[in-house]
């Protein structure tokens, strides 16, 4: 107590506010101000909703069946994790078509096609009331594939970026905080990554690892971390020398705690901005890989795959190029707008 009275002008080093919930509240306030940001955010939220609800939006399975006064929701059995429960054991082995013939009442999803339902009699149909966005070369419903494709494209974006953000933060934090040898090592590593033409590296890695959705995410993740690492390193370098770190150290706090509880939240803002932009480019990289035939495996309906399929019929089936192309650019523009808004919102220099 006496010590504090003796030094009233030396307040305890305050932690910068950039990590606190209050800070994010302010960021949100700032973010909200611009209409474009909100439009972008809404687009993303709607897309995420579509992706989550995809099986309920487009499915050839009936949503609702009423037969002999009993109501079934067969679609539930297609939804993970409900599918594990086996809700209707009596339905196994039953052909629903028989029921239909017997006068059962059926209700379908808005798009009554599953993404893999091929129909060789309806190849390359232009948009119609049956197929709102037309059909592809195997007679599959484009809208259904687009809806289910949102799951793939979004998860490629989110997971790949998630992977590289983690790598980048980890390496950047080490280098920024400890400096010296770690920093040297990271600089060399980043230099090495820069020197590889990225797309070349991705191709080589896909060849080594194999063509699988997860590997593609992993590869984009493994090759994309340098930006985040540099950012984190810079932030940590800046924060390391601030008084509150000394205060933490003087309290005997373990390094891990200082790094991840005290420093990391403060460095998160620029990382978040960069990650948002990263999602957009990950989706684009996936579509380029699909174009070269290195994308997700068929019949997985990623937007890139849809678009690259369309190339051979580009002059006869406009709907095959237009709709997936629009889906891609809508999503990416939305992510970029949000990223831009976030950047403006978290940048204290722009706020004043």
């Amino acid at each position, binding site marked *: 107590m006496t010590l504090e009275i003796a030094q009233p002008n030396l307040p305890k080093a305050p932690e910068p506010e950039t990590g606190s919930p209050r800070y994010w509240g302010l960021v949100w306030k700032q973010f909200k101000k611009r209409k474009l940001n909100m439009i972008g955010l809404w687009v993303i939220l709607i897309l995420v909703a579509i992706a989550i609800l995809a099986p309920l939006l487009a499915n050839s399975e009936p949503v609702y069946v009423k037969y002999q006064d009993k109501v079934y929701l067969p679609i539930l059995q297609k939804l993970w994790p409900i599918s594990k429960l086996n809700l209707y054991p009596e339905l*196994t082995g039953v052909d629903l078509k028989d029921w239909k013939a017997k006068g059962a009442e059926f209700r379908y999803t808005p798009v009554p096609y599953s993404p*893999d339902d091929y129909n060789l009699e309806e190849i390359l149909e232009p948009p119609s009331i049956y197929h709102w966005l037309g059909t592809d070369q195997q007679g599959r419903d484009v809208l259904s594939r687009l809806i289910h494709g949102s799951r793939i494209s979004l998860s490629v974006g989110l997971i790949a970026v998630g992977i590289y953000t983690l790598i980048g933060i980890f390496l950047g934090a080490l280098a920024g905080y400890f400096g010296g040898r770690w920093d040297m090592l990271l600089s060399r590593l980043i230099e090495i990554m820069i020197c590889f033409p990225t797309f070349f590296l991705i191709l080589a890695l896909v060849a080594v690892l194999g063509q699988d959705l997860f590997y593609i995410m992993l590869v984009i993740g493994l090759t994309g971390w340098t930006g985040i690492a540099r950012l984190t390193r810079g932030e940590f370098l800046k924060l390391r020398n601030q008084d509150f770190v000394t205060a933490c150290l003087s309290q005997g706090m373990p390094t891990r705690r200082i790094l991840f509880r005290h420093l990391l939240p403060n460095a998160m803002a620029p990382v978040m901005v960069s990650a948002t932009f990263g999602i957009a480019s990950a989706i684009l990289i996936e579509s380029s890989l699909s174009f070269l*035939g*290195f994308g997700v495996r*068929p019949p997985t309906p990623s937007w890139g795959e849809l678009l690259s399929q369309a190339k*051979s019929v580009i002059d006869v089936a406009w709907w095959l190029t237009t709709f997936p192309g629009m889906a891609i650019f809508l999503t990416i523009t939305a992510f970029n707008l949000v990223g831009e808004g976030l950047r403006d919102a978290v940048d204290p220099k722009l706020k004043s």
Partner: protein
Amino acid sequence: MQRRPSFIVLALLVIAGLFSACEVQAPKDPHTLIYHLGSEPDTLNRLTATDAYEGRINGFIFDSLIERDNATLEFKPKMAKSWEVSDDKLVYTFHLRDDIKWHDGKPFNADDVIYTFQKIMDEKVDAPHLRVYYKDIKNLEKLDDYTVRFTYAIPYFKALEFVGGIPIIPKHVFDDGKDFNSHPAGRFPIGNGPYKFKRWDTGSQIVLERNEEYWDKTKFPDIRRIVFKIIPDDIVAFQRLKKGDLDMDSLNPKQWVKQSNTPTFEKLFAKHQYYTPSYRYVGWNLRRPYFQDKKVRQALARLINRQGILKNLEYGLGKLTTGPFWIFGYEYDQTLPQIPFDPAGAKKLLDEAGWIDHDGDGIRDKDGVKFSFKFLIPSGAEFYQNLATIMKRDFAEAGIEMEIQTMEWATFVQQLNSRDFDAVSLAWSFGYDEDPYQVWHSSQAEKGSNFVGFQNGEADRLMEEARQVFDKDKRAELFHQMHRIIYDEQPYAFLYSGPALVARSRRFENVKVYPGGVDILEWKVGKQP
């Protein structure tokens, strides 16, 4: 200062506009045939080259000892004016013409043939793919400057085709002490055929010019220049054809049916189709438990909607096939019926084979093994992707789980070689006298092209016997038997044989379509329609 950047932009736009406005290219020469090449050949060194593009170009630059007649497909003299085969079918003697000159003026003689053979057998030469074809030749002698004699260790019905088609290279060009594999003549071939090599612009074009001193006046071409344009993207190539940048291109079924039916196209181009020996198939790796039973394989064949795929994905351009031979060949047994698309029948067969869904998860199983396998296809190939997705759907319906595995070509080859796959789809293309030994003999199951591991004693015996039968009819009889065995065993689900689809400019006249395709050498240059 502030104005300058936008000024430059404006200037660039103006320049761009000017380019489009005025012609920056010379008018086309009607005597030049511009032909599409989907990929650049690695080299034009006939011995070290391994791609199909090299053959397409060198076919114009080089002649062979004997060649097949366009119409009858029988062998006839070319650089060898005659040949003799010994009664035991082991000794082949060729009498060479003495009036043939290489493009650099040096005469062609027996030394070139001997040198070529020596180089093929030389282990320092990167030609192992050729070496395997000639490894049964015991001896090659030069009897005189214009007579050579090949002696085989064992009789083989394709021996004449092999020795008569040996890719002869000029000794005086290559034998100068330089490393053979990287010899400059590989980039600047000197041949003896109807066209001379002119230039090669890496990645863009290869130009040939007519050999005015060509010895074979019966085959003296009318077209003065052939330009092979390297255009890796087929869609772009087709657009260039439509625009008139190309005179000749092969089409895919979609282009043939949907994209080339405009009046302008019909006016400028004629389309030809012909069948060369080839077929597409789905191969089951017989080493896997679920493919070991013949009944299962017969069931799977009934689960592939071949008719639907051919009709709708390939627009009916192709013929369903039942076995491993050319559908128009003497080896093919035409009496065998097509296997129908019959899911119900397939399910019955599967039940009979003991593959039943015991645990109610929608997937058949037997002895605790689930019927769940991976289907390997090369990546980026549209047909295989379509096939695979359709199969996946129909198989799932029948209680079989199929996962599609796409692999980039080099990896794909590796998987095949190490036999590390469940099922695979690919195509075979082959010669007019087919020897099925390489693909079907049990000795090839370990290391050769018998990826699926087909082993059948009777079939082995038939193939071994056929190799030494020189009479076509007798061989046909043996192969028909073999065809029936394979039809019954269904190690492959045979899909169909697709035609070659070619569009060429109507500027050329005297175009005949033979079973083996078109012969540019006999074309005449006419008026642009």
